């Protein structure tokens, strides 16, 4: 089996023969290993994980390891396994983990994110993987009222979980505190790009209309327009303003997508039928198996104690 996959993945991998195949073998091993006893070498790959999700955001910036990880991530068993197993060292090495859950989550969520449904149809899955497929992905607790979920959220937060989330049909006020979220940074992105737009617009207009200096073979042209000074500033104001707004707005959109890691169509929560109501009239809390405090028993107990109207353990590929 590994031979076939080996070739298949080699073909799929965009990077060089060697680079792609080498980490892939490692992972097949890891995938077979029982939970918790992951060989050391996997750590390297795990550390590589953040690089992977960068790889999708800004593919070109990535150097070899990221490119190498891609095929690795595609190998499902490993993908499911690692996060659960390797979270602790990660947490230790990153004490800042608590402050920025947003920044931390990626490593956990990423591997499944990389699962390309097209590349690996379920039919191809070797029987050996079946048990692995049943690994828990997250607990999903459903609540019926805003108060209930706020109450529950506080409990989960106090329990020290980091890779967990609330799902609500609309922006539920008060959850920020309840989840202990830190304020978003999106404003900074917008501001910086807005400023860039302002400067860019001014430079463009000044260079083309008020100078005849040549840039890359293209020179401005000081045309005499209505006898007015070529570099008249007042006439530049409207365009400076509009262009600033334009870049500010676009950067806000893409900044948002970047920060929330969307689009992503394959989150494990979607495996739960009940979750469909998360966009209708129900409130959910999900605690991911990727969280280092995650424990099938304890976590269930914690969630049950918050009186959810429903509680389920979502498993990988249950769908």
């Amino acid at each position: 089996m590994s031979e076939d996959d080996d070739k298949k993945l080699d073909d799929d991998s965009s990077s060089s023969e060697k680079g792609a195949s080498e980490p892939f073998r490692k992972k097949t091993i890891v995938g077979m290993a029982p939970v918790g006893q992951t060989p050391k070498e996997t750590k390297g790959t795990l550390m590589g994980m953040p690089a992977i999700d960068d790889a999708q955001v800004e593919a070109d910036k990535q150097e070899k390891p990221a490119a190498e990880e891609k095929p690795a991530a595609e190998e499902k068993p490993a993908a499911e396994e690692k996060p659960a197993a390797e979270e602790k060292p990660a947490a230790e090495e990153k004490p800042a983990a608590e402050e920025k859950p947003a920044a931390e989550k990626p490593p956990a969520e990423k591997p499944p994110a990389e699962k390309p449904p097209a590349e690996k149809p379920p039919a191809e899955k070797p029987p050996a993987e079946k048990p692995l497929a049943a690994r828990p992905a997250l607990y999903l607790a459903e609540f019926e009222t805003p108060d209930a979920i706020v109450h529950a959220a506080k409990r989960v937060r106090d329990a020290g979980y980091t890779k967990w989330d609330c799902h609500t049909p609309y922006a539920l006020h008060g959850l920020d505190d309840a989840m202990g979220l830190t304020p978003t940074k999106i404003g900074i992105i917008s501001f910086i790009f807005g400023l860039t737009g302002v400067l860019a617009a001014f430079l463009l207009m000044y260079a083309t209309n008020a100078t005849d200096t040549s840039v890359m073979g293209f020179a401005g042209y000081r045309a005499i327009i209505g006898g007015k000074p070529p570099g008249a500033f007042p006439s530049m104001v409207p365009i400076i303003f509009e262009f600033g707004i334009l870049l500010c707005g676009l950067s806000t959109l893409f900044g948002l997508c970047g920060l929330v890691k969307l689009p992503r169509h394959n989150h494990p929560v979607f495996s739960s039928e009940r979750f469909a109501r998360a966009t209708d009239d129900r409130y959910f809390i999900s605690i991911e198996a990727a969280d280092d405090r995650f424990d099938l028993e304890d976590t269930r107990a914690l969630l049950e104690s918050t009186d959810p109207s429903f509680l389920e353990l979502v498993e990988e590929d249950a769908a």
Partner: protein
Amino acid sequence: MNDHEKTLPEPRVWRSLDELHSDGPRDMRTDHEKTPGALLETHSLLGRRGFIQYTGATAAALGMSACIRRPVEQIMPYSRAPEYQVPGVPLHYATAVSHRGDAIGVLATQHDGRPTKLEGNPDHTGSRGALGLLQQQAIWDLYDPDRARVPAHREGDSLLDSSFEAFDEAFGALIATHAANAGRGLRVLTRGTTSPSFMRLREAAKARLPQLRFHTWDSVNEANVLAGAHLAYGQQLGTVVDYGASRVVLAIDSDFLGTEPGALRAARAFGPTRAIERPDQEMSRLYVVESTFSVTGGAADHRLRLAPSQIEGYLRALARTLQSKGGFDLGAIAPAIIAAPLDAFSAHSAWLNTVADDLLAHRGTAPVVLGSGHAPALHALVHAINVALGNVGRSVKYFAPVDAAATDPVADLKALVADIGSGAVQTVIVLGANPVYDAPADVDVRAAFGHEGLTLVHLSSHREETSELATWHVPEAHFLETWGDHRAIDGTVSPQQPLVAPLWGGRAPIELLARLAGEANWRSHYVVQQTFRSRFPAPGSFGREWRRTLHRGVVAGTGGVPVQPPLIQAPAIATALAQAGETAAEGIELVFLPDSRLFDGRYANNIWALELPDPMTKIVWDNAALMSPATAARLSVRNNDVMRVSVGDASIEIPAFVLPGHADDTFTLHLGWGRPSAGRYGAGKGFDLRPLRSSAHMHHVAGATVAKAGRTYNVVHTQEHGSMEGRPLALDATLEAWRADPRFAQFRSVDPTEGPLWQRQDYSTGHQWGMTIDLGSCTGCNACVIACQAENNIPVVGKAEVARGRQMSWMRIDRYFVGDENDPRVALSPVACQQCEEAPCENVCPVTATSHSPEGLNDMAYNRCVGTRYCANNCPYKVRRFNYLSWHEYLDGDPELIGDVPTLTPTYGNMPETRKIQYNPNVTVRMHGMMEKCSYCVQRIEAAKIATRRDDRDMRDGDIVTACQQTCPTGAISFGDLNDPRSNVARKVRLDRGYHLLAELGVHPRTTFLARIRNANPAMGTPAAAASEEAEG
């Protein structure tokens, strides 16, 4: 396949010379088999080889189209030594054209063999460098797509295309038969001529065929003038009024600046007397008594509206008044006019007494002029008055007649028709005239020419109304295609030298005459040379003299020598006056005047002329019945109401159009319109007046009855609003007012005293082009408009589009009426792009298609223009023009309309190829979607710069002459470098009557207007003087 080969004549297929000369077997199919794709190529229209062949052919064809066949005869560049054609460098040739018994010297510009533009010949006394409207537009006729191209011969009822060979043969036979019978039954109908060759050949033909008789016909002619002079002096004399030497001019129903004989000559002389630069200078004064509102009336200092029937009464009354004053004696004529009733003019007593005083006060320089439409007796009286005023020899000059054998066309035509009717005529050769269209209603030329057994040979540029009856129709060559010569009224003789061989073939009148005269070599070149040989008798001198003459365009030493007229024939005049006498009748009086653009209809297919606004009414593509507001109110008609105008039992239908200042109870009707077969553009445009015009009343007729026809007809004109609304636009003042307040113009149109907030552009160095337009001497004759159109490839858009307000002409002559609606004065201002230094149009162009040159020109980069039209919106002068449709591509005339939306298929078909030959290669031809406007003829500026650089000299004033400036008959336009202290324009912009249009906007126009000064006679106290005060207040 094989037997198929057998059946075919075997073509000689070879691939190399060796194979060709070897006897080796030839393989028919080798090409197809051995060359991959060859089979396909031979079968597909555009294979690789095919493509290359076609490309080559196309390229060659394009090349050909540039080089029109040049005349085989040697012709002489005017301004350069005869190293012949430098590609891309225009050449100028001197030639001449005749108009109304006078010759006008022309300089024709030729680009690579294509005549593109006509300008005045500075060496010719008739033009002195300028050209009138009609001569300017004449270049278009050369390229008229509807010109007849081959002779046509009648088969049954239809004219069938024939060939010149066939015609020459037939014509030869025709002449032979008449040579046999000494020309019995042979008649030649010609237009009035100024050509010495023509006259020489006419005499020769008469000598050869004794019984041959010549007739002349022109519906607009100078017969009365000539007859008047003959009556006054007992001999043929040509009369020339020297307006340059005149202080006071009294023009009685004479549009001497517009359509009268010698108008160009008059305007050249008259202009300077109006363009005075300092208040202390002397200025001429113009009194105009007229029925319609003519260009001359617009230029008048005092104007009196009179019905045409009153003109005679006024003239007699004036003569009587003059007679009653001291020191003026008409001698034997006095009794004849002593009975002249004055009471009819009691309302205008000033027009008798004050004018008489003014005339007497300027003896010798106070010519009285009478319109050519009036009776010979009156002309004779005017001659007598001029004699009595001592004008003769000073402001009125007489010359030997141009054509001593000239006859009265009306009588002549009548005689011809009568003779045909009596069967005494077998053959009529019509040279140029078109009597079937423009003969008087009571002379039935159509019937006569249709006479059984009559052979009619018609020579004309188009197959027109007369041609339809002809046995043979011969295309007449354009004057730029054939040789000829002309004698100006002052005796100046000029050769008419062609610039191209006839585009479609074509004959000159003198060529047919030469054959009548039995000349072996009847080619115009030879004929004209023969005429000139007599002028250069010195042995061996002919070649040199001939070249010099062609070079200068005039025969050295001819012309300008007036003759001393004999004593005035007072008794004859007295008796003539006694017999003459206008019979005033009830009803409306009609005045028939030549159209300022179509003249007598010979320019009826000239799209420039058709779309040129009438100077006064601004009507395009039509003529109309012009009437005064009072008359319109009395008849309760409004513009566009069609009226049935009847004289006796003849009547026509024509729309009404109100012209302020027109004489009451009088309609002015312009001739030359409504020609059924003028050509694709002119056919059926306007309304034919023929039914109303009888041989007794060629100029005006009284007692017409009018009734509303109950429908309306859309008369399109280009100026919707005629009032200045009290805005300081076309400024003027009386001479007194000016002397009292020399800088009145600047006070009324104020330049901003405060500069803008920003640092103004520095135009203090280098050339800075500027223009001045002197409203004092501008008569609004429209010559500049056509000159601009010819120079700058400006398209014509057609009546429907003008109606929508899309006329394209870059130069627009704004005509405003000032003062009383029924008796206003007119204020003109020619407006083209003002080349503002702080142009509003530039600020708003998003693509920098229009921006300023360092020399102060407001440039248009045509190929950069996307056509947002924002610039035009923001132009306070509205001088920008937008190509809403592809005028150049398929219109150059009306678009067909579906509802009110133009279709893609034009009325007149695609742009004729010939039309494109006229284009000035130095000016971009604009496609649809582009903005365009006056560029101060930037192409001429650049040409001049190149020339000066080549000659390594500084630019001199006068090196650059814009098209409008060049042609302006009164020299109202100056152009040049404002930074050159010696330049004409730099001096004129500092004149204290100079002002900028809409100066208060602070756009700093480069065009400066010189306010018009009216030399009003304080003693008159007529509206003219009053109005100017009111306008200032």
